[in-house]
C-alpha cells in the first residue's frame, strides 16, 4: 500500500521528506508569517472601510463615536447632497481637463527628449542627459518658482498647473532605457528606405513602444490627478480649483477654521459624513482603475531601476 502510493507520486517524495525534516519550526513560521501579512492587509484597508462606513452613516452616530467598520443609520442622502453641489462637479471637471492636457504635454516632451537621449552616437548627448539629471538633485525651490509663474502671467490659467511639471526626469530615464534596448536594425532599415528621423520615430519606434508609452501615460496621469498644490497655489477662484483643492478646503479648512491659520477658501465646520463622501468620490476613479494599471506601474519601476 505504502510503496504503491509513493510510486504513484514519485515527484512529491523529496519535498515531503524535506518538509518532515524542517517540520515544526518551519510550519510555525509559515503560519506566523501569514498572520503578520494578513495584519498588514488589514491595517492597509482599515482606513478605506472606515471612511466608506462613515460616508453612509448618519452624522449623529459619527459625532458620538459609534461608527467603525459598518455604517450606522444607513442613508445615501449625504451622497445626494455632495453630488448636487455644482462646484464639486465643476472642480471634478477641471481635474479631468488638467490631467488630460498635462499628460498630453508631458508625454510629447518626454518621448521626444528620451528618443534623442537614447542615440548613443549623438554628439552632445552627455550634456543633454546632464542637463536633465541635474534637476533631480537641485531645484529652484518654492519661492523662485512662484515668482516665475506669477511673472509669466500664468496665475489663474491652466498653464500654471500643466506646464511646470511637464518632464519627470525619472520617467524620462525609463523611456530612454527602453528606446536604447530597441534593436537598431529596424531604424537602420527605415533610414535606408528614406524615412526621416520624424518618420522613424512616428512610424517605426512609437508603434513598437506602445507598452512603455502606456505606462508613462499612467504614471503622469495618476500624478496629475492626485496633485493639489499647484492648484492651491496658483488658482485664486473656486471655479478653477481641481477637485483635490475642493477636498482640501473641505477638510483642512474645516479643521483650521477655528484656529488662526485659516486662509482664503477655508470653510466653516463641515460634517464628517460630507467629508467622507467627498473622499470616497475623489478616490473612486483611482480605485476603479487600480487593479488594471497596477502591473504597468510595477514594470515601469523595474525598468527605471536599471542602472544607466
Amino acid at each position, binding site marked *: 500500500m505504502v510503496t504503491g502510493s509513493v510510486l504513484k507520486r514519485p515527484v512529491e517524495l523529496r519535498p515531503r521528506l524535506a518538509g518532515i525534516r524542517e517540520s515544526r*519550526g518551519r510550519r510555525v*513560521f*509559515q503560519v506566523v508569517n501569514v498572520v503578520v*501579512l494578513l495584519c*498588514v*492587509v488589514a491595517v*492597509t484597508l482599515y*482606513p478605506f472601510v*472606515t*471612511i466608506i462606513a*462613515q460616508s453612509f452613516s448618519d452624522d449623529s452616530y459619527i459625532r458620538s*463615536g459609534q461608527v*467603525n467598520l459598518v455604517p450606522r443609520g444607513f442613508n445615501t442622502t449625504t451622497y445626494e447632497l455632495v453630488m448636487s453641489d455644482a462646484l464639486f462637479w465643476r472642480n471634478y471637471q477641471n481635474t479631468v481637463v488638467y490631467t488630460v492636457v498635462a499628460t498630453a504635454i508631458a508625454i510629447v*516632451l518626454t518621448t*521626444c527628449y528620451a*528618443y*534623442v537621449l537614447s542615440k548613443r552616437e549623438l*554628439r552632445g548627448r552627455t550634456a543633454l542627459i546632464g*542637463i*536633465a539629471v541635474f534637476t533631480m*538633485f537641485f*531645484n*529652484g*525651490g*518654492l*519661492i*523662485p*518658482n*512662484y*515668482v*516665475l509663474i506669477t511673472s509669466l502671467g500664468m496665475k489663474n490659467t491652466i498653464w500654471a498647473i500643466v506646464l511646470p511639471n*511637464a*518632464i519627470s526626469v525619472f520617467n524620462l530615464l525609463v523611456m530612454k532605457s527602453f528606446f536604447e534596448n530597441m534593436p537598431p536594425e529596424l531604424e537602420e532599415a527605415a533610414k535606408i528606405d528614406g524615412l*526621416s*528621423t*520624424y518618420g522613424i*520615430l512616428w512610424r517605426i519606434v512609437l508603434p513598437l513602444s506602445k507598452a512603455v508609452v502606456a505606462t508613462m501615460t499612467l504614471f503622469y496621469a495618476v500624478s496629475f*490627478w*492626485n496633485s493639489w*498644490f499647484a492648484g492651491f497655489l496658483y488658482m485664486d477662484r473656486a471655479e478653477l480649483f481641481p477637485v483635490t*483643492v475642493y*477636498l*482640501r478646503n473641505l*477638510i*483642512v479648512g474645516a*479643521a483650521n477654521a477655528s*484656529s488662526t*491659520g485659516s*486662509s482664503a477658501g477655508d470653510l466653516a465646520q463641515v460634517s*464628517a459624513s460630507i*467629508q467622507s463622501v467627498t*473622499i470616497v468620490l*475623489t*478616490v473612486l476613479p483611482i480605485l476603479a482603475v*487600480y*487593479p488594471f494599471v*497596477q502591473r504597468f*506601474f*510595477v514594470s515601469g519601476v*523595474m525598468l527605471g531601476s536599471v542602472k544607466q
Partner: protein
Amino acid sequence: MRAVREPWRRTLRRDWQLYSLALLPLVFLLVFRYVPMLGNVIAFRRFEPGGSIFGEAWVGLRYVTMFLGDPTFWQVFTNTFVIGALTLLFCFPLPVVLALLLNEVRTRYFQRFVQTVSYLPHFLSIVIVAGMLMQLLSVEGTVNQIVRAVGGEAIPFLQRPEWFRTVYVSSEVWQTVGWGTILYLAALTTIDENLYEAARIDGANRWRQTWHVTLPGIRPTMVTLLILNVGTFMAVGFEKVLLLYNPLTYPTADVLSTYLYRVGLESNNFSYAAAIGLFEAVIGLTLILGANAISRRTVGASLW
C-alpha cells in the same frame, strides 16, 4: 569620443532633425527648472513683487544672517531633522522586512493579493491621505474609539504637538511600505538557488541562510535606496505637513519648507524665504553627494 572631431556644422547638417526634437524639452527645462535655480539670487538681493524676478539690488548676506539669528528658523530646522531622521529610521528598513516576509510565502495567489493591497496607498493623493487621517484621528474617530475601549481618555491627536511625529511617521509607513518592496522583491528573484543549496549543505538554518545569502543578495538595492533616502532626508514631505499641521502643532510639526512657505507666500518676505529655500536645497545636494561618495568608497556601489 571620436578620434577625429568632425566640425559641428557637419554634425548639425546630418543630425538636425534629432536636435530639433530636443528643442522644446530643452526650452522647458531652461524656463521651468534653470530659471528658478537662477531665481535663487533673490536670496541675496532686494526683491519687489511685480519687479524683476531676479530682484532689484544686491544686499549681500543680509537674509542669511537674518535666518541664522532667527530662533524660529532653528526650531524648524530641528523639527525637519528629527522628522527626517525618524522617517528614514522606519521607512527604509520596513520594506526590506516586508519583502523578506513576502518572499517566504509559498502560495503565489496569497503573495499577489498582499502585494496588490499594500501597493494601494501609493496611488492616493496626499489630500486623500490627510483627509483619512483627520477622520481616523478625530476625537470621535475609530482610533479614539479603541483608546476609549481600553479605558483611556480620547486624545485630539492632530492638536497635540507631542503626537505629530508619531502621526507623520506612521502614516508615512502606511503610504510607502508596500510600494517600497517592489525593487527588493525583484532583487530577491535574481538570487542564485545554488547559493541556498550550498548554505544548506554547510548546515545553515533558515535564519543563517537569510543572513548570509538573502541579505547580501539584495545589498546593492539596499545601498542604492539608502543613498536616495539619505539624499532626500531633509526634504520632509512638505505637502503632507502643510495639510496636517496647525498653529497648535507648530512646535513639532513646522519644518523648513512649511516655514518658508508661510514667510514667503503668506507674509510676502520673498527674499528671506528664498534664502531659507536655497539653504535647504544646498543641504539636500550635499547630503546626496556625500552619501553617494561614502557608499562608493565603503561598499563600492554608487548612483552614478
